[in-house]
């Protein structure tokens, strides 16, 4: 009887999946869990909030200029009598979604450039890595500023594909043609944002390509692209995911910095950064209007940082600093 029970117990020990192992390690980081919760709240605030709020971000309430917080306007009204709370929600959509879009694009470019560079070596490697070197020599923030200053005044010949404009227009609640400036901003952030990831992926691929399983795949006649997509990239996913998580936070800050300086998201659209820029003249009479958007940026950024740090431990303990 005893032996039978023991046997059953062994059989009943559940197999833990990869995901459960990772989640188990992730869960130990209390700050990361808090970060996850805060981020969820920020997303809910931006995406569910507008449908709970009966105000429109563009509506100008006559006679309600520079309003203090009331029940109807929890964060008061701005210099044009618009509800600040509702504007915060819609601005959050731009800040949060823009950072995700930019990161997804930079990660894809970084993966492709890095794996070509690392796997094939030779002149493609030289070309890509020297491009990375030169782009990294140019100072990021001033360069982004000058590019935005030149392109944001309108009339920039390149536009993003129509389906993207329509998609983001739908999310951000604006007509597709109004997304133009924000998409240019995203484009600039993408063009000058992929270099770090390319270097990371290249390093990974360089060390992975001499592994036995890559050798084995090659000996079985697998093509280079097959090895890259089926072996190199999946095996470098851990550091890529970690880097991408940190990148969400960085892009939010960078976009906010550009918008704060007046070269990011342009009115009437607003991101958290441009709300902060907007309030600079009214800071003394409505200090909370400067505090709240900055707090949102700070919370989003630090949450991504905490999550990234925990993911680094959870996905690959060897990566720990």
């Amino acid at each position, binding site marked *: 009887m005893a032996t039978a029970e023991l046997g059953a117990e062994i059989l009943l020990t559940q197999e833990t999946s990869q995901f459960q192992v990772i989640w188990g390690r992730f869960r130990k980081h209390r700050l990361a869990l808090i970060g996850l919760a805060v981020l969820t709240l920020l997303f809910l605030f931006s995406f569910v909030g507008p449908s709970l709020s009966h105000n429109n971000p563009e509506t100008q309430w006559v006679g309600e200029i520079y309003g203090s917080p009331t029940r109807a306007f929890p964060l008061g009204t701005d210099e044009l009598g618009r509800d600040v709370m509702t504007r915060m929600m819609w601005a959050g959509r731009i800040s949060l979604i823009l950072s995700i879009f930019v990161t997804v694009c930079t990660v894809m470019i970084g993966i492709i450039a890095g794996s070509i560079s690392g796997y094939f070596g030779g002149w493609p490697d030289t070309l890509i890595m020297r491009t990375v070197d030169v782009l990294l*020599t140019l100072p990021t923030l001033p360069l982004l500023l000058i590019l935005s200053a030149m392109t944001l005044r309108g009339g920039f010949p390149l536009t993003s594909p129509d389906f993207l404009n329509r998609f983001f227009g739908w999310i951000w609640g604006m007509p597709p043609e109004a997304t133009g400036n924000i998409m240019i901003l995203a484009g600039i952030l993408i063009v000058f944002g992929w270099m770090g990831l390319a270097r990371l992926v290249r390093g990974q691929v360089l060390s992975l390509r001499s592994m036995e399983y890559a050798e084995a795949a090659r000996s079985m006649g697998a093509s280079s692209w097959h090895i890259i997509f089926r072996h190199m990239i999946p095996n470098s996913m851990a550091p890529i995911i970690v880097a991408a998580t940190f990148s969400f936070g960085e892009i939010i800050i960078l976009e906010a910095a550009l918008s704060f300086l007046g070269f990011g998201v342009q009115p009437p659209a607003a991101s958290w*950064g441009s709300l902060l820029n907007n309030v600079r003249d009214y800071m003394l009479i409505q200090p909370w209007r400067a505090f709240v958007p900055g707090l949102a940026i700070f919370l989003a950024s630090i949450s991504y940082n905490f999550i990234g740090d925990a993911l680094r431990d959870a996905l690959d303990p060897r990566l720990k600093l």
Partner: protein
Amino acid sequence: MTNFLIRRVLQGVLVLLVSSVLVFLLLYLAPGGPVSQILVEKRQTARYPIKQEDVDRLMKQYDLDLPLWQSYTRWAFGWPNLPDRAVRYGVIRGDFGTSWRIAPNEQTMKVILRVLPNTLKLTISSVILSLLVGVSVGIYSAVHQYSKMDYTITAATFLGTAMPVFWLGTMMILLFSFKFKEWGFPYLPPGSVSGARDYIVPLLGTIQANSPIDQVLRLVMPTITLSLLFMAGWSRYTRSSMLEVLRQDYIRTARAKGLSSRVVISRHALRNALIPLVTIVTLQLPFIFGGAVITETIFNWHGMGLVFINSLFQSDWPVAMTYILILSALTVASNLLADVLYTLADPRIRIS
């Protein structure tokens, strides 16, 4: 070593050359051409309608009507010299072109260098503050690893790296300048390099405009704002490199000899732990200058960054290009310096 240095210098020159081409091409990115913004404004303000010949004259004055390559070589190398055009000496001989709007027809380099002392004042004090705080906090963290204080410091560095500096700066002005003044506490002046008129601060008495104490008071908030990010980063580097060193055999030997913990840490561990930090600090110097753009804007600090922002608002592209070139050169130079310092500081690194 010499060969390595020569190779790195040549590489650096090449990188600078390529980035100068890129920076120059930026000029043509503006929709409707570089002068479009100026023309728009001239059309609004000029007494007479702007004719095509006026546009042509403007284009000729700025070398914009030439073929692209000629325009570039004249800007970069001052070659070829063309008849009925101004002689250009080229960036290579220190002629970065003239400003269009901020200080019309003045050398851009002069416009920027005039405010260099202000930027240096801010950046140098930030580097000193970041090093003092970062290194000491990092050492403490490493020596007392996994203590309560270590965790607190780690959390604080997270706050520092995730903090949007423009928000921090704004909030500091609100609190330390305006609210403190309102509450009757000693307050800090909200911005500018030096004051225009005297003001009274509780406890400190009357502060004379432009006196040393006035300048110091005005330096406090911008310095803290600019250094926060680097403070956080450098304390992490110090901590991890100190932990690495503390595990080494020679530290155990030193302890085994009976040296006091203080001597082991300050003489044996710290010296070796600071080697990687030297490199990091050198590599990040350009970022401090770049980051000063935001800080200078918030505090209306009349430095290079603010001049750059103003040049962008006024479409004064030559000034903006010069600023970016200066920062690129600084990046290349600091990369080179970091390599040299690293080899000098650590004899274990041998370069063949």
